[in-house]
């Protein structure tokens, strides 16, 4: 079973990689596909407004209005590529679930016992939420390239840096709080992780809309409208923040009290969870303050993501602490 899990893991990464290539294929043709046009239009309208043109509401002349049908074969092919990408993404998600399930069966417990399993689970949540978002709002599909890139990098890192053979839990983890604490943190980290993708793309798109044409901003040409990205960023974060609060600041201390005798002890992992919480709280405050620019607020959210990564990799690998389960199996 453990062997099967490892094979499924490799397969999962490969399928995500294939999905990434397909998304990239659609992305490359993006400006001319249905989604690409939908994404490009608001920017065009905004430029007209900026020029003071009275016909701002009318579609730009070089674009056909409301392309309900696919005008030519090439467009249809691109749409097909996009569907393949989403389908591959969904297949990857299923394999991902299989990896986790077989891992859990092999160890006879929830597959959240060490860093490898933790990253696997958080990435699964990110992937599942991403797929949910993309099915509900096809307009954000152009983020697929970046979302799957993040998944592939993260899973690759999990496999290369953090791989741990299947093993049972140490007694300290043997508690029902394990399920509450770790599951909520995994789900919220997965969503924060996913929220960073539209956040970063918003900054790129915003720069592109302002006429910046240097390297990272050129990526903004085909991504969805800035306002849509910004709103998606906020909604993902606003959903994940209370969940993270529960997992890190309520369930975690409750368990720490029962296990270590104190609810909060400034263990390195606790310190960095505290830092992430503060930074994400700053993001939510900044976003609800009219005098703070949305780009500044989004930068804070990205900073929060950096602190989450620090907590995931840095703290597990560099600092010794009570949460040192990175190699709990060995």
């Amino acid at each position: 079973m453990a062997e099967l899990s490892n094979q499924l893991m490799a397969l999962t990464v490969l399928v995500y990689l294939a999905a990434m290539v397909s998304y990239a294929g659609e992305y490359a043709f993006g400006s001319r596909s249905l989604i690409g046009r939908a994404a490009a239009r608001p920017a065009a309208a905004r430029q007209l407004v900026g020029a003071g043109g009275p016909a701002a509401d009318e579609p730009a002349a070089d674009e056909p209005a409301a392309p309900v049908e696919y005008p030519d074969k090439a467009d249809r092919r691109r749409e097909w590529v996009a569907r393949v990408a989403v389908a591959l993404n969904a297949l990857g998600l299923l394999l991902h679930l299989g990896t986790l399930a077989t891992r859990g069966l092999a160890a006879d417990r929830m597959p959240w016992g060490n860093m490898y399993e933790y990253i696997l689970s958080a990435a699964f949540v990110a992937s599942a939420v991403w797929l949910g978002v993309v099915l509900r709002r096809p307009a954000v599909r152009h983020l697929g390239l970046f979302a799957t890139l993040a998944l592939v990098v993260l899973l690759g890192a999990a496999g290369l840096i953090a791989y741990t053979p299947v093993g049972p839990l140490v007694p300290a983890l043997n508690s029902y709080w394990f399920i509450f604490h770790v599951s909520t943190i995994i789900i919220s980290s997965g969503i924060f992780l996913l929220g960073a993708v539209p956040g970063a793309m918003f900054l790129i798109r915003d720069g592109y809309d302002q006429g910046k044409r240097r390297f990272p901003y050129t990526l903004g040409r085909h991504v969805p409208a800035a306002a849509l990205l910004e709103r998606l960023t906020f909604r993902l974060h606003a959903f994940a923040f209370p969940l993270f609060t529960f997992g890190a600041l309520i369930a975690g201390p409750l368990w720490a009290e029962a296990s270590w005798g104190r609810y909060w002890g400034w263990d390195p992992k606790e310190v960095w969870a505290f830092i992430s919480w503060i930074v994400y709280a700053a993001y939510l405050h900044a976003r609800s303050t009219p005098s703070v620019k949305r780009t500044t607020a989004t930068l804070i959210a990205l900073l929060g993501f950096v602190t989450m990564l620090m907590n995931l990799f840095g703290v597990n690998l560099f600092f010794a602490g009570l949460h040192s389960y990175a190699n709990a199996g060995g």
Partner: protein
Amino acid sequence: MTIVEERSAPAAAPPPRTNRFWAFLRNSWRQLTSMRTALVLLFLLAVAAIPGSIFPQRSVSPEKVDQYYAAHPQLAPWLERLDGFEVYASPWFASIYLLLFASLIGCVVPRLADHVRALRLAPPAAPKRLDRLPQHAAERAVAAEPAALAASIAKMLRRRRFRTVVRELPDGGWTVSAEKGFLKETGNLLFHFALLAVLIGVGFGHWYGWHGNRILVGGADQGFCNLLTQYDDSALGPRVQPGDLPNFCLKLTGFRATYQSTGQPKTFSATVSVSEDGGPETSRSFTVNDPLRLREANVYLLGHGYAPVLRYTDRYGVAQTKIVPFLPIDGMQTSEGVAQFPDVNIDPKTNRRDSSLQVGFEGRYLPTVPTDGSAASAFPAENAPGLFLTAYRGDLGLDVGSPRSVYSLDRDQIAGGELKNISGTRPHELKVGQTWTLDDGTKLEFLGTRPFATLAIRYDPTQSLLLVGAVVGLLGLMLSLAGHRRRVWFRALPGPREASGGTLLSAAGLPRTDYPGFADEFTALVKAAEEGTS
């Protein structure tokens, strides 16, 4: 600290003479309670927390601070001066969070007052030009009379939990004003006040709490009573006197550990007999994630190990037995410790103690001696136990009175030659029941081992309060993130006479916070208002 709406502008004409000092204070307070300052303080707090994860903290692991001193003798004193080993108790960390909380109080108290006022006010009258609002439904003809229509719209809005007021206009028209979403601000305030409560609770917990650690060896003769002197180390809060500690006694009657075949532990469980306030002894079990909860004290099982039982018979034939906990140094319970016998070899005739004839043993205990001859245990359970000791004779250095580790011999005494190795460089191996005869004919017997449990005993009086505060705060947070405050107005004007009465209905809506779904809700409300009358 969310600024949802602009404060009302200050009075137009400033008072003629302002006291500069008061103006300075007022401006500083305004600056402190502004959102920008709060954001900066939040960041400072996050940045200030980082050193505590990089440098070892005395409150977390004092021994690592000592190691850091040894490894960085130049840097460590400087870090000490900057409170680098006590970041979370340092004045600079405290000043940041106290400023932040001052800023928070300055922000949420006026907002609480505003909110209470808003809750008691009726929704405002409809503006003259409804079409200037973000959402607007143009005038349309409805068959019902204005008064009846307004009443039915108000009913519909109240059913949807809007706060609703119906007003009659002088020209015979009616308006309905409605507002909803106060829970957003309520939740937001609840969250911030819960944060304040948690901070205060943490402070009180620190003042009135206490904790101590103790190694409790198995057996009825090794009991422990909750007195400060019986702890290996302890810390009382500033408002706790040693006499305030609750009165209870513990005896470790059983300890069970089970392991995987790899040596990884599966379960630990300790059984103790407890007597509270001099009452009868009861037997209680507890384990790693399930502490022993007593009145005003919780007992946590942090670790365990083995304590060899050693009997030393001196040159006058007097025997002494010591039970000495050996501390585990790895996951396989390879343990290190020392047995010191300072009061031996006392001549019964003169009754004088010769300090050069004190005896000490230092070494390792392996619960499972490996077959390959290495010095580390092969398994944490006692499958093939062996004790490896080196014997020393001479002055143990215990009479100086300075505090020293009880888990190793005094290195200075050995280096100075006052304490001499008398058993050679290779440690002597003892199996259970074996006797080791030293060069002077004295004997050491290894009688067996007893389990010991490492216990942390703690009390924090505000813990449950903090949990309530945190849960209330979370509820408030969810309300404040999910809610949307919005206003809607309906205006019902009497229709023209020639159209045989009826009503001209128009409506407008204003989201008070960022709310993308408002257009849909507004459309639904207008539809319901029209349908309710037909």
